[in-house]
């Protein structure tokens, strides 16, 4: 064998890659017709909600790129960010095509203002790596978010919208890994040194105020036939988190929840102060140079 990686290639597969073959295009064989039982406007809003959760959180995780505490962890967080970016692309594309106003995934990601974003506030808060940033808080958020989103996507695989069901089926495998990664780190930080334990406890307390919002349904999530009502996920997610906490010898944080603003929260486009800074960084190149390609 001239190239040691030949042993990793499929027989008869493309050889122009150094290694790794047999790629498939996500959702290429899925029926994209909206079922008659599904309200189109609500479906657009729902795809934006789930898509924005992934897009904004992906942006936050990508901030760790080149700044994680270890090289290996750097790649792990970037992989997770890329998985979520892939989910965001599929969901924003679906929102754009059902809306029918000519907006594609890029227009939705880069040209909406803060009030147009429908993500939960948990994903937008700043856990680092910048000033005040903390790896343990990053892991705590990943644990909560991926446990919640995995439970949601497992239900969503049964959605009457075939595209949502397919996005969910693809995402379940990714999210199961994200949750495992976060759980593994939670165990190690909690069981490491007194200092690492203190940090993970503080990290959980930092993200916990945004947990109730994950299970508070927006009217779209309750009435859309293709959606999952997040209120139905609470006991399952609590059970998963309690299992991790038990194994790590941690208590579930007892902290006050961040209230909605005049009854409105992330799903209504009402965000925290951190959101504007995040969008400025994420959107400024696309807005400064519209239509630029490279």
């Amino acid at each position: 064998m001239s190239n040691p990686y030949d042993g990793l290639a499929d027989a008869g597969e493309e050889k122009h890659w150094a290694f790794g073959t047999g790629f498939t295009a996500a959702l290429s064989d899925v029926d994209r017709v909206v079922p008659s039982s599904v309200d189109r406007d609500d479906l657009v809003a729902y795809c934006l909600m789930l898509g924005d959760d992934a897009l904004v959180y992906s942006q936050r995780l990508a901030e760790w790129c080149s700044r994680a505490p270890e090289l290996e962890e750097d790649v792990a967080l970037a992989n997770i960010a890329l998985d979520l970016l892939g989910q965001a692309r599929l969901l924003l594309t679906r929102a754009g095509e059902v809306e029918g106003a000519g907006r594609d995934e890029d227009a939705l990601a880069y040209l909406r203002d803060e009030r147009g974003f429908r993500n939960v506030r948990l994903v937008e808060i700043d856990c680092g790596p910048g000033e005040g940033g903390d790896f343990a808080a990053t892991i705590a958020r990943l644990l909560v978010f991926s446990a919640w989103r995995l439970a949601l996507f497992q239900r969503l695989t049964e959605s009457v919208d075939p595209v949502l069901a397919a996005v969910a089926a693809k995402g379940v495998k990714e999210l199961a890994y994200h949750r495992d990664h976060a759980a593994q780190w939670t165990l190690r930080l909690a069981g490491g040194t007194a200092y690492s334990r203190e940090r993970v406890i503080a990290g959980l307390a930092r993200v916990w105020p945004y947990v109730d919002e994950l299970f508070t349904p927006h009217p779209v999530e309750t009435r859309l036939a293709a959606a999952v009502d997040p209120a139905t996920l609470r006991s399952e997610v609590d059970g998963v988190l309690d299992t991790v906490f038990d194994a790590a010898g941690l208590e579930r944080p007892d902290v006050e929840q961040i209230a909605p603003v005049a009854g409105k929260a992330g799903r209504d486009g009402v965000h925290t102060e951190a959101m504007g800074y995040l969008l400025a960084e994420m959107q400024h190149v696309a807005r400064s140079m519209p239509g630029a390609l490279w």
Partner: protein
Amino acid sequence: MSGSSWPLYEVFVRGKRGLNHVHVGSLHAPDDEMALRNARDLYTRRNEGVSIWVVRASAITASSPDEKDPFFAPSGDKVYRHPTFYDIPEDVPHL
């Protein structure tokens, strides 16, 4: 970065139709379980594999370059150890 504080692991990956695990590189990890996960993230992100082995580099006993000649040179002139004097049927794979 303080990767040197974690032990070094060697990573072996088996491709989808590969017959054996191939050494693809190394990484640092705090323990065996995390090494496996780091290997997944570092070495299978382009759809390379279906199975991973990780082993602590310190657990590998390797031949020394200084011993290259006594180890390997004596087999260089023993062509009779190869089955080149047999007729190999066309339909026998992986021989």
